[in-house]
């Protein structure tokens, strides 16, 4: 028998189109085609920033995006900083301070750095990346809507109201958990991030159902097997994705458990 090296014969170098065309990215972000995709709107919604909540209360809704953005509490809609910032960047929202003065983009970027906001730059990049592609994205563990009585007046009248206290209580508890986890960055390398639903799904805040997957953002090193397993136990059948953001690039990885077949 010929001493043929059958392994080197196999040409495993394949150019598989479409799988990793990342080289296009660098070009794309500077081309005019990309910029024109940002639709600067005429119908601009309005919201008021509530410092205590570190959230924006929506006072004027325009456009269809409200079906998949903001959380509803007692008939009012509130946005987290990442949603607010996303909408401002695409020109779909004016954010006012409590005196009614429109906040500059710079001032809103500033708010992102506040601990209370429960978010930070890389997490915002993940949010923005998925939202721009049409996914429905919400903070994990925060209900999209909670039934309750409607407030009588829409604008900035939460001072001292029962709804405000409830809202504060509920969200500050979640925010504290997130903040705690940020502080624990040294110990766990991942932080809870987002529930993600596929675009074009018939998403309803009143009954969102299970997300398609949950995204965890890693800031330091890749997650260990122990961490992954703990999260898998927590989420049961829901798929997990681990996200890494660096130099403005958002990458998603799955570390799925498998079992190779026993072959005949």
């Amino acid at each position, binding site marked *: 028998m010929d001493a043929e090296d*059958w392994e080197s014969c196999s040409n495993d170098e394949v150019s598989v189109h479409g799988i*990793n065309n990342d080289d296009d990215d660098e070009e794309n972000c500077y081309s005019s085609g990309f910029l024109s995709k940002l639709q600067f709107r005429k119908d601009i919604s309005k919201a008021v920033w509530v410092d205590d909540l570190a959230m924006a209360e929506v006072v004027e809704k325009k456009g269809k995006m409200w079906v998949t953005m903001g959380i509803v509490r007692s008939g009012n809609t509130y946005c987290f900083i990442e949603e607010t910032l996303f909408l401002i960047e695409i020109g779909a929202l004016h954010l006012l301070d409590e005196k009614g003065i429109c906040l500059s983009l710079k001032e809103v970027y500033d708010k992102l750095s506040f601990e209370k906001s429960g978010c930070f730059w890389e997490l915002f990049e993940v949010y923005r990346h998925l939202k721009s*592609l049409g996914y429905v994205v919400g903070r994990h563990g925060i209900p999209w809507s909670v039934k309750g009585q409607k407030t009588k007046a829409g604008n900035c009248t939460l001072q001292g109201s029962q709804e405000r206290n409830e809202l504060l209580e509920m969200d500050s508890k979640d925010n504290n958990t997130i903040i705690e986890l940020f502080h624990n960055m040294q110990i766990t390398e991942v932080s809870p991030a987002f529930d993600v639903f596929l675009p074009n799904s018939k998403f309803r805040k009143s009954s969102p159902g299970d997300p398609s997957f949950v995204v965890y953002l890693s800031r330091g090193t890749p997650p260990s*097997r122990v961490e992954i397993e703990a999260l898998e136990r927590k989420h049961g059948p829901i798929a997990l994705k681990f996200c890494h953001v*660096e130099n403005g690039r958002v990458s998603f990885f799955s*570390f*799925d*458990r498998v079992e190779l077949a026993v*072959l*005949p």
Partner: protein
Amino acid sequence: MKPRWKGKGSEAKAIADPMSKIVSLLQSSMVQSETCGLLSSCSVLVEVDAELADLLNRACFGRPRITAEKDKQWFQLDMEEAFYLCFSLRCLKVVGEDGCIKSNEELWEDLKSKKTVFPVSYKAYSHLRHKSWVVRSGLQYGVDFVAYRHHPALVHSEYAVLALLEGGNDQNGRLRVWSDVHCTVRLCGSVAKTLLIVIVNDNCQGAATPSCLEHYTVEERTITRWNPEQSREDQAVL
């Protein structure tokens, strides 16, 4: 990724000729011939007749060495392959420079002294071989092994395998940082393979003797990159 068979009829050939059977034939043939190999540094050299040479090739153990010898053929086995034939299949004996046959424990010590992570890489190798996957060196792809569904002449390898010790810190420092993950996944993708990590847990048994291996457990995970641009409609792709 689906298996990529090479040419028409390859899949049928593979089905008609299961790898487990080929390995079984190899095993009995080697036992019958009382095959003996020589440990030379990190390789084991075996002299075999035509029948055995054919079985070694069909089962994908070792690499044939081209020599001027006419009647006999020489094969060179990697550490994991040699130990699998000795310890798991019990069909090979190995002698050292002194000409004495080594016990499994002696051979284990020898191999560990040459490659510190041998227990981990061997566990991963034998885990896949037990399931009748063909496992070969993955050096040219920057990984430990590549795994084939059948003979490499019939099918391209589907998995690029890294054998990692449980506990997060791979002794060889692979996938320690995100750029490593990016790099390895990208490379695997460019050669149409899925990155498979075989996580070996020694369950605090240590590696004093090969019998410790029995108590090791193994977990398989794939590391794949998800592209949000491509999967928006298809739930199944997630």
